């Protein structure tokens, strides 16, 4: 708790500091490769025969996903706080890679916690992290996935709190993390808003993004929240189907609970034990969801839907073959929703989909399923 108070104070200070903002924006531009394009998916638009489809190309960021936006911001904060060591949890490995990357860039010792099951299915990212000089700690407890990695990272943090900065990768965990991660990720929506106005002269009708913990979705949605005509859809991982119980659709299938210091929707059993989740996308395999997303859902601002493993795979393939873009399995959930949504809309309507990451890391998993 004192660590959270220290972090909250430090973040409040940099949030008001124009020099910090400039530093952050410079690294995003010159190191992370921002702004990312807002790409008009012409062939996909034609094929779906409805709304005009734009893809926010976070897959083109350095390290291959939106995760770098947040790790650059927090690493700069960690450096200001004088921390000598950064730890992070990771599911798909994208956040782990993004953390290992900035730790290398700023010369800070780095240790990544990753569930044993995720280490198995994301071996490429494990190799990348090690190559970047990070130590990868394989977590064997509970379901051996993201939440267990987070438990272990929290344990490490409370033990080494004086020297260590815990770099959370999603809008999960205790305050101020959900707010801070949202702020760093909202560069996605800020750019997209500016870009769509430049391209179309108006705002989109829909913004669509996949939701695991929720960092890419809140990053896209947040700058559009006050544009009441812009509808928002969060797409959760339905795994084998929500009715089977083997899924990670927290908002649609969960109840209010408390995990990792935030009160939000939570996948839990009738005794309040956290349930094991399932998704083909390791980055969505988390039983919680950002508290702000839960709030916006209850307030009626964000609609939630879901895509199954199969639908995500089909969407991944469809996007690859129409646009020549291989999306991450996580982002493919948002594409799956697009495939259902766009044909129902008029040709003059606009949908922006957050293509949060690229699919290289998933090729083994995809191969297994396609066989």
């Amino acid at each position, binding site marked *: 708790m004192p660590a959270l108070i220290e972090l909250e104070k430090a973040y409040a200070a940099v949030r008001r500091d124009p020099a910090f903002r400039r530093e952050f924006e410079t690294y995003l531009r010159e190191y992370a490769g921002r702004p990312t394009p807002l790409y008009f998916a012409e062939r996909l638009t034609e094929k779906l025969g409805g709304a005009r489809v734009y893809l926010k190309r976070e897959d083109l960021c350095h390290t291959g996903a939106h995760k770098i936006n947040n790790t650059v911001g927090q690493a700069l904060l960690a450096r200001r706080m004088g921390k000598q060591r950064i730890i992070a949890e990771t599911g798909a490995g994208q956040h782990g890679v993004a953390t290992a990357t900035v730790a290398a860039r700023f010369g800070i010792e780095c240790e990544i916690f990753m569930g044993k099951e995720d280490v198995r299915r994301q071996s490429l990212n494990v190799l990348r992290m090690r190559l970047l000089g990070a130590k990868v700690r394989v977590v064997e*407890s509970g379901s051996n996935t993201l939440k267990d990695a987070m*438990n272990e990272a929290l*344990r490490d943090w409370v*033990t080494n*709190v004086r020297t260590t900065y815990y770099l959370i990768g999603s809008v999960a965990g205790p305050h101020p993390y959900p707010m801070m991660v949202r702020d760093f990720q909202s560069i996605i929506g800020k750019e997209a808003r500016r870009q769509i106005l430049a391209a179309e002269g108006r705002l989109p009708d829909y913004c669509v993004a996949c939701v695991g913990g929720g960092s890419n979705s809140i990053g896209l949605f947040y700058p559009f929240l006050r544009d009441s005509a812009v509808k928002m859809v969060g797409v959760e991982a339905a795994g084998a189907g929500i009715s089977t119980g083997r899924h990670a659709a927290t908002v649609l299938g969960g109840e209010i609970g408390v995990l*990792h210091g935030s009160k939000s929707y939570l996948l839990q059993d009738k005794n*309040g*034990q956290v349930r094991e989740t399932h998704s083909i996308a390791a980055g969505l395999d988390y039983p919680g969801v950002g508290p702000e997303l839960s709030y916006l859902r209850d307030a009626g601002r964000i609609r939630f839907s879901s895509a199954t493993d199969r639908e995500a795979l089909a969407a991944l393939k469809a996007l690859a073959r129409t646009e020549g873009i291989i999306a991450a399995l996580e982002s493919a959930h948002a594409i799956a929703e697009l495939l259902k949504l766009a044909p129902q809309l008029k040709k003059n309507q606009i949908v922006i989909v957050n293509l949060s990451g690229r699919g290289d890391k998933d090729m083994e998993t995809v191969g297994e399923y396609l066989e």
Partner: protein
Amino acid sequence: MNRIDAKFSELKSRGEAALIPFVTAGDPEIGTTLKILRSLEAAGADMIELGVPFSDPMADGATIQRASERALAGGTMLPHVLALVRRFRRESELPIILFGYYNPILHYGLARFARDARAAGVDALLCVDLPPEESAELRRETEKRGLYTIFLLAPTSDDERIKLVARLARGFIYYVSVTGVTGARRALEGELQAQVARIRRYTRLPIGVGFGISTPMQAGRISAFADAAVVGSALIDVIERAGRDGRKASQAGAFLARLKRGMRGAKRPVSSF
């Protein structure tokens, strides 16, 4: 009067500190826990800290995580833990503190929990992932029922936080002797005594020390300046290693008796609280 207050004043009159063993309820099943509780009482336990199993015990080290997993595998949930306390209450007046995580309690219902826990004979609750700042909702219910809430302080706690905990805590204050998760450590931090003295400036409540106590000598040293020593992981280790049922209870008792002797042998100022 809450059993915890009664116990501390009884111990005070004898110039003793309390020995509080921690066991995870239902490790590996609830019948064994009942036998262990009896054995601990016979061996000189002054209060019991009873762990409520949780799927994500993020404040616990590997030993208690394993105990929690075994208990969950055996199907022990909060209602079973309350039933265990009710059963033990037929034969014992030892103060019982539930140690657990917030979500199972929230899910059970705060008002319902406070009512049922008190009716079962629970005296206090330590909700390890609920910081005092966020505890108002829970305390509204527990205070109505006379159920105490215990909060943790750590070496990193500053004076502001000590004041806050001193204001909200009931029964005693639990000082975590090391930064980190639960678990037996080789050595205790040297400044422990000074930290306990610092907390005393803000409270008249008894102060218990836990996390990392594993030997009679450590327990004895702590009882010289603190009012209670909590022993968790070291005891769980003994229970884990003891093999089958009956032996778990007897070895847990034997281990605790050694700690109690270590504490009784220690010199203790009579008026430490």
